[in-house]
């Protein structure tokens, strides 16, 4: 998949996004704590580009997607969509925005109503936003998008359980695409699929992006996938951004020790390089977001950690050689 050049106008600007979940510790009468799932995340998505969001499970990457869609109300921060801050919008105020802001889920089968046919599932956004169109037009549009995502029109009356995982994900993509949205949030769209199917779905998303100029937020725990599909990559750790950079720049020279560790773990399809590669193995698990480490959240597992890291929270600053390459580290490479 080739990556078309992204234009620079920001479609979506997220500023200082925080999502805290109240958690009660110690049974019924315990203290109420805030689980900081997303803690002050800022990023832009430009028209026609793919922003990759990588992070371990529990890093808050899915929460970001859900907070942008207002499925989870952000605790603080702005979600500026086409120049309008939609953070905290009610269901009714959010509805017109949903037309151009769609989502593709991780589990293709679970995200499709088992009692609805593929055609009805794909037509769902059409039914809510353009209920006036006739039966023939509705069918025509559904078949058109089915062809676009690589489904045969005669599959229109089948139910999700009659499809394979990859085909179901195509249905999910067709549903997200039918209204020609401006941004699709793909929340781990290939994680539940067989490895052999992943490339097909990734290529399909790329082809659709090329054809319709949509933007994508591609959420995944797999840096190998993300760096392949994304124009820019956002590396998330414990609800905080570690590094945002152009995909090529990040690949060539990751600055943050966490990104370096992730990249060193991602396999390279070249045996000589792969054999030579130095792997950075991180010790331990992700710390609890209920009780994050002081200073830099990554310091507990960082090979470069020093006293300053525990004392001071590193700011996300352009320390990677270009204004676009932001790193949150006291001792970047």
């Amino acid at each position, binding site marked *: 998949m080739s990556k078309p050049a992204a234009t620079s106008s920001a479609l979506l600007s997220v500023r200082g996004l925080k999502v805290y979940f109240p958690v009660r510790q110690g049974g019924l009468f315990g203290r109420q704590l805030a689980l900081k799932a997303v803690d002050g995340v800022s990023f832009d998505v430009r028209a026609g580009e793919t922003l990759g969001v990588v992070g371990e499970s529990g890093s808050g990457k899915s929460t970001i997607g859900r907070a942008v869609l207002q*499925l989870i109300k952000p605790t603080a921060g702005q979600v500026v969509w086409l120049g309008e801050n939609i953070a905290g919008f009610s269901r009714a105020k959010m509805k017109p925005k949903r037309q151009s802001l769609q989502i593709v889920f991780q*589990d293709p089968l679970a995200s499709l*109503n088992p*009692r*609805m046919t593929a055609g009805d599932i794909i037509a769902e956004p059409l039914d*809510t936003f353009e209920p006036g169109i006739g039966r023939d037009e509705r069918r025509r549009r559904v078949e058109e998008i089915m062809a676009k995502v690589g489904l*045969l029109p005669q599959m229109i009356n089948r139910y999700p*359980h009659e499809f394979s995982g990859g085909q179901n994900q195509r249905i999910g993509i067709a549903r997200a695409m039918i209204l020609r949205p401006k941004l699709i949030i793909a929340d781990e769209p290939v994680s539940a699929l067989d490895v052999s199917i992943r490339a097909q779905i990734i290529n399909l998303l790329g*082809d659709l992006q090329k054809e319709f100029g949509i933007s994508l937020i591609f959420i995944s725990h797999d840096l190998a996938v993300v760096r392949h599909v994304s124009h820019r990559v956002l590396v998330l750790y414990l609800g905080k951004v570690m590094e945002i950079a152009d995909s090529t720049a990040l690949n060539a020279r990751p600055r943050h020790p966490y990104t370096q560790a992730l990249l060193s773990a991602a396999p390279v399809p070249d045996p000589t390089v792969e054999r030579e590669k130095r792997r950075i193995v991180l010790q331990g698990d992700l710390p609890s977001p209920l009780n994050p480490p002081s200073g830099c959240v990554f310091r507990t597992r960082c090979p470069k950690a020093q006293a300053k890291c525990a004392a001071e929270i590193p700011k996300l600053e352009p320390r990677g050689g270009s204004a676009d390459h932001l790193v949150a580290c006291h001792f970047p490479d």
Partner: protein
Amino acid sequence: MTDAAARQTSRYVSQAPFQPEDDDAANVPNPPNFMARLRAQRLAYLAFGVLLTLYAMLPFIEFLAPYDSETRNPDAIYAPPQSVRLFHDGEFRGPFVYGYSARVNEETFKREFTIDKTKVQPLRFFCAGEAYHFLGFIPANTRLICAAPGESLFLLGSDRLGRDVLSRVLYGGRVSLTIGLFGVTISLVLGVFFGVLAGYVGGWVDTVILRIIETLRSLPELPIWMALAAALPAAWSPLWIYFGITLILGLLDWPGLARAVRARVLALREEEFAIAARLMGASPARIMTLHMAPNFMSHLIASATLAVPAMILGETALSFLGLGLKPPVTSWGVMLNEAQNLAVLEVYPWLLTPLIPVVVVVLAFNLLGDGLRDAADPFSR
């Protein structure tokens, strides 16, 4: 993937479009639907057939019953059941019954009836019997079976007023079978409404509804029925009493269904496809009706079916205690109420016949409900 990919590889790549399912797309068998899965449950399907037959009989009770439910025959008090026979003295006589001979018991001063094997009384079919109004407005007098002219026919015996037990069981079925359905309908409407409200809205609404449900369920059933039934005005006509009892049974039954619905809604609203619908901009009403209802309806039908026998038993119990329906309305419970006396039972056991349809119907509903539940969710087992 397409042209570009083909050009990059040196090996042969077919340029023909890949159409893996071209031919057999139409041959994919449909998954077994709800009815097909129910049919696979032999016992449940049989129960379904039995119930369907019973309910289909209800409009034709007047035709099927030899007598009206209130027709008295003072000459045949507590007459024993007559059985239908075909041969008399080894000779084929067609379907007939033996008549009664009455004798006054010198000790008890009661008339006792015995089957007199000399009186051959051939049965008549599709004959002119007592006049009735078919469906309430078409005057008719054709009945399926009549006694020989001038004689009487009590296939299941007669009661203390000389009324035909068979006819009364048939007429009673009309009340007993429908009261369960109406009660369940009321309970279903209330249960779905409150269950969906609690499950979908959540928050304090959920808490309030749950507390009401718990309170209602913690009340002892029988005394509450009795209290409510006793509160029905005595001046009400039997029809109003009938609806009153239905209402009481329905009002006390909905919490169970509401709870089941709430649980399903709670589970479904967290399902990804419901979240997807929400994110596609679907309204709550659309999510409820299109995405949730089809996914819990079959479960609900199964629970409702299992609630019907409880209603029938409830009516029977209330009427047996003399608090439910009262004569002249006939239900199985009312009939059993008249069979309370142990002494009566010893001498006239045929008065207990209404128990047989109660058991059959309750059993059938339970079997059907179990079958429906399994058919509704083939993956649950």
